[in-house]
């Protein structure tokens, strides 16, 4: 058997000698039980790590528990050695695990088939080392791991306290060595060779050569250090450069097609790595090539397919994960990249709105959709029928930002959305985008039982700013019941009214301001104060005499609001003159 140990054991005796003298505090029976316990916890950890994501508490708990078991074992022993056979694992001479399944779930089979024959854990093994050990044995080698086996991963983990013995026999046929050696040795050195070399060497006078011994200086090492640091950066840009080189050199249609595939997989890789900037740079360069007059239609078509791939669900899902990671990556490269996407990517982005967890990520996607909206308004409006209220609200926001009044007819269909938050957003959008078509809806919302909805409706009327809208607000304020509304709501209505700044409104406000409060009711004074506030906002000097009058009123609220309004009008006029 051709075994190789990763660490030579010869000097270990010196290190462990002390422990032998100390003896161990554990009975053999107990010790075996503890070893079995460790094996059980490793099996459990394998299961849990596959079942739960790393941020799940069970995941962390399992790792913690495993480490505890080891710590307890190391109170009595300085090392734990497991011997591995195809179906069995032994501790000392005791069988501690047996399973005859030929599957990776079987721990002994799993370790044995890759050549592992012995595993040693040493006291003082830090928790990070055990954690990476457990992570490795929990990986799915059939699905996720392509060119590694358990040994190569152990090797790369570079353990200090976990040692293992590996058999490499599994690797290759023995015959090659014999055959190659025989072949190469067959060319025997010719009998006279040495004599000839000797004669030649001594024929000329021997001169001692000055061999060029190169010694490295501190500055060489500094340069090397910079090299290594530089090498740690990701390789995507260089990789893209190479794909472009191959692209330029491509001659046949098949070659161009291949290169498209390379671009696509490089883009996918870059997004996985979170390097959106590299993708952006690539698309930009491709766009430039596509614009060149020397490029034929077939190549243009291929370039287009790369853009299309970038906007595919596969890639956009990865983009979503990237922004949803909690690290809040810079959205700028993605914002720049959006201009290369076409309308086909809209549905995928809308799907993301429903699937992403973080507000941060959703905001990035919303901004992208705002940009893409003009490419297909109709596609965007389809999102209004999403079962998720927040998606509907986001879509309304997108339509609102897009300022295209064609959206109104779709928005009107959502005014009766069961979710208040959606209704508020749609009312606002209708105000900003709408025309006379939206008036009936807004009017009905002025009587909504929810105050926030009523306020949204009146503000929307304000942003419509038409005469009809004004009339609606005036009618509402004139109603008798208006007096009984809360002060804040009233103030908001009067605030909206100030938008119109015309004689009708000023007259109406003065009339309200000068209304006699029959029973001196506080509610009436509130309305009067609001009228004063509104006049102040309008800034019409003709209101000043009335406001002076009201400043002297004995109602504190009216006094205060009149005073503020006067101040405001005078300030404004001063600035203007």
């Amino acid at each position, binding site marked *: 058997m051709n075994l190789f140990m990763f660490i030579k054991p010869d000097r270990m005796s010196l290190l462990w000698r*002390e422990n032998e003298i100390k003896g161990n505090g554990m009975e053999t029976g107990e010790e075996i039980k503890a070893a079995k316990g460790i094996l059980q916890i490793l099996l459990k950890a394998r299961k849990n790590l596959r079942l739960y994501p790393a941020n799940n508490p069970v995941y962390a708990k399992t790792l913690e528990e495993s480490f505890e078991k080891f710590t307890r074992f190391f109170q009595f022993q300085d090392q734990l050695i497991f011997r591995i056979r195809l179906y069995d694992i032994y501790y000392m001479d005791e069988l501690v695990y047996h399973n005859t399944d030929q599957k990776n779930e079987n721990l002994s089979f799993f370790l044995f088939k890759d050549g592992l024959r012995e595993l040693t854990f040493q006291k003082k093994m830090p928790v990070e080392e055990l954690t990476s050990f457990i992570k490795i044995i929990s990986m799915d080698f059939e699905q996720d791991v392509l060119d590694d086996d358990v040994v190569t991963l152990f090797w790369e983990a570079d353990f200090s306290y976990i040692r293992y013995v590996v058999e490499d026999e599994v690797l*290759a046929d023995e015959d090659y060595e014999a055959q*190659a050696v025989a072949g190469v040795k067959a*060319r025997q050195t010719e009998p006279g060779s040495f004599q000839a070399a000797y004669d030649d060497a001594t024929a000329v006078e021997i001169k001692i050569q000055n061999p060029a011994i190169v010694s490295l200086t501190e500055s060489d090492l500094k340069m*090397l*250090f910079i090299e290594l640091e530089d090498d740690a950066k990701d390789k995507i840009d260089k990789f893209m450069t190479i794909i472009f080189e191959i692209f330029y050199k491509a001659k046949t249609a098949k070659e161009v097609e291949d290169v498209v595939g390379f671009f696509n997989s490089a883009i996918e890789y870059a997004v996985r790595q979170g390097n959106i900037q590299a993708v952006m740079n690539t698309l930009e360069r491709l766009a430039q090539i596509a614009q060149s007059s020397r490029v034929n239609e077939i190549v243009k078509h291929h370039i287009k397919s790369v853009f299309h791939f970038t906007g595919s669900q596969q890639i956009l899902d990865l983009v979503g994960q990237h922004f949803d990671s909690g690290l809040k990556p810079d959205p700028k490269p993605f914002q720049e990249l959006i201009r290369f996407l076409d309308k086909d990517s809209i549905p995928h982005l809308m799907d993301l709105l429903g699937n992403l967890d973080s507000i941060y990520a959703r905001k990035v996607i919303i901004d992208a959709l705002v940009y893409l909206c003009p490419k297909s308004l109709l596609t965007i409006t389809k999102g209004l029928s999403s079962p998720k209220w927040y998606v509907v609200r986001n879509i309304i926001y997108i339509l609102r930002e897009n300022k295209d009044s064609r959206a109104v007819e779709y928005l009107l269909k959502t005014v009766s959305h069961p979710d208040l938050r959606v209704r508020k957003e749609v009312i606002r959008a209708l105000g900003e985008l709408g025309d006379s078509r939206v008036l009936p809806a807004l009017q009905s919302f002025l009587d909504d039982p929810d105050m926030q909805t009523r306020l949204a409706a009146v503000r929307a009327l304000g942003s419509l700013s038409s005469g009809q809208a004004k009339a609606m607000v005036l009618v509402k304020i004139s109603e008798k019941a208006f007096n009984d509304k809360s002060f804040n709501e009233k103030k908001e209505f009067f605030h909206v009214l100030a938008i119109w700044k015309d004689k009708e409104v000023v007259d109406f406000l003065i009339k309200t301001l000068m209304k006699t409060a029959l029973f001196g009711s506080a509610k009436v004074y509130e309305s009067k104060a609001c009228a004063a506030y509104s006049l102040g906002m309008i800034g019409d000097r003709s209101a000043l005499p009335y406001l002076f009058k009201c400043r002297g009123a004995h109602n504190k609220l009216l006094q205060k609001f009149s005073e503020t309004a006067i101040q405001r009008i005078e300030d404004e006029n001063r600035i203007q003159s």
Partner: protein
Amino acid sequence: MKTAYRADSPKAKGEMINQLAVVLRSAEVHHVDNIAVTNAISRLEALVSEFVQLENILILELRGEFFFVNEFRIRYSSEVMINFDYLVRLFKSLDVGTLVFQNDLSAADISVLTKVLVEASSGVSFEVLQEKLSHVNSIQIEKLKHVIEADLLDTRKMVKKTYFKAVSVAKSVMSSIRSGDEAVDLKKAKRMVVSMVNHILDEEQLLLGMASIKDYDEYTYHHSVNVSIFSISLGQRLGLSMKQLTELGMVALFHDIGKMVIPTEILNKPTRLNDEEWGVIKKHPVEGVRILLKMKRLDYTSIRSAIVSFEHHIFYNNTGYPSVKKYPPLDLYSRIVSLADQYDAMTSARVYSRTPMSPDKALNLMMKQAGTQLDPLLLQFFINMVGVYPIGTLVMLDSNELGLVYEINPIFVDRPHIMILTDRLGQRVTVHPFDLSNKNEEGAFQKSIVKTMDANAYKVNLAEYLL
């Protein structure tokens, strides 16, 4: 000074060795009582004491060219290389193999050790040093152990096995690509590379020796493995991590994968290639990228492999092929592989140039290309690795004997280990090894190289002596 990492971490272990070198080097310049030395000593004392408190004992041993701290081999990172080199030389010249620190170590004890080591001239016997330190209870020194021949023979066998397995894996992987097989067993290839990295860390010289025998029939596969070995070995000197070394080994192994789509008639053509055929050969870097990218889903290693496949003939100054305009600097791995590739190709009997160059001649040529075709800094590391007289060089000694270099001495690059082939009259003798760093009683080297010759020119079959 408090260290940020655990006292028994690999970094702390390396730091102790480094600090020991700092102490000794400063004591060579200043008196032991000088503040520079005492400061260095007290830092060393703090590091060692902290370690001993955790581990009870500190055993610092030189084995071959490497230091071990309580059985852990300390890596040779570039920052500490100069200090490590110094310490290896010093230990070897004094025949000291091991320092053991225990019990209550004091700065005064280290000061005694420093004085004893620095003041000892290289001729002094180990026993004298031991005597001088006998009253220091906390420090013991042990004599340098020379590797036992039988052990060496065993290791040699194992390394040999590893080498040929690697070639056979390379062959099966690469020929499955040639035959258009879908399932390429990369796990096997990677496992092989890990095994090679492992051997290079422990028995670098043996594996380099294997890579020096060039006369095999299957050039492409041997070449791939050789380039991988030279690259890993160079990478190790640059201080790359295990993971990086494995990656570099993989990347190097596949650097010529593009040759698998070149018709074998051209690849193995025994006569000179015409321009058209050369044109086909020159496609292999790009073809390699195509193969690598189609092989599996992209990951970091396949990207690096593709980069190296594309760049390995471009040259440091962009004068090679494929021709590229406005191209960014070559990747570090490409420059490493390019060195390894050129060296192995020049010293091999390739099908399209039947006469291989002698290793030292190849090195000389490469030195002329420093800064133009080859990265000058990496070339320096490469020369230190293969030695001024690389393995396989036929040499004439000042004793008039002929010898063959079979192992490099990393500390004295111009004093390799050789096999003596003839006596001083040129008569063949029973081949026996000799270490050119051996000195006589007066402290002078016993034998030195005066001339190198081309073993190939005299049809000396290296395999007879190196395998």
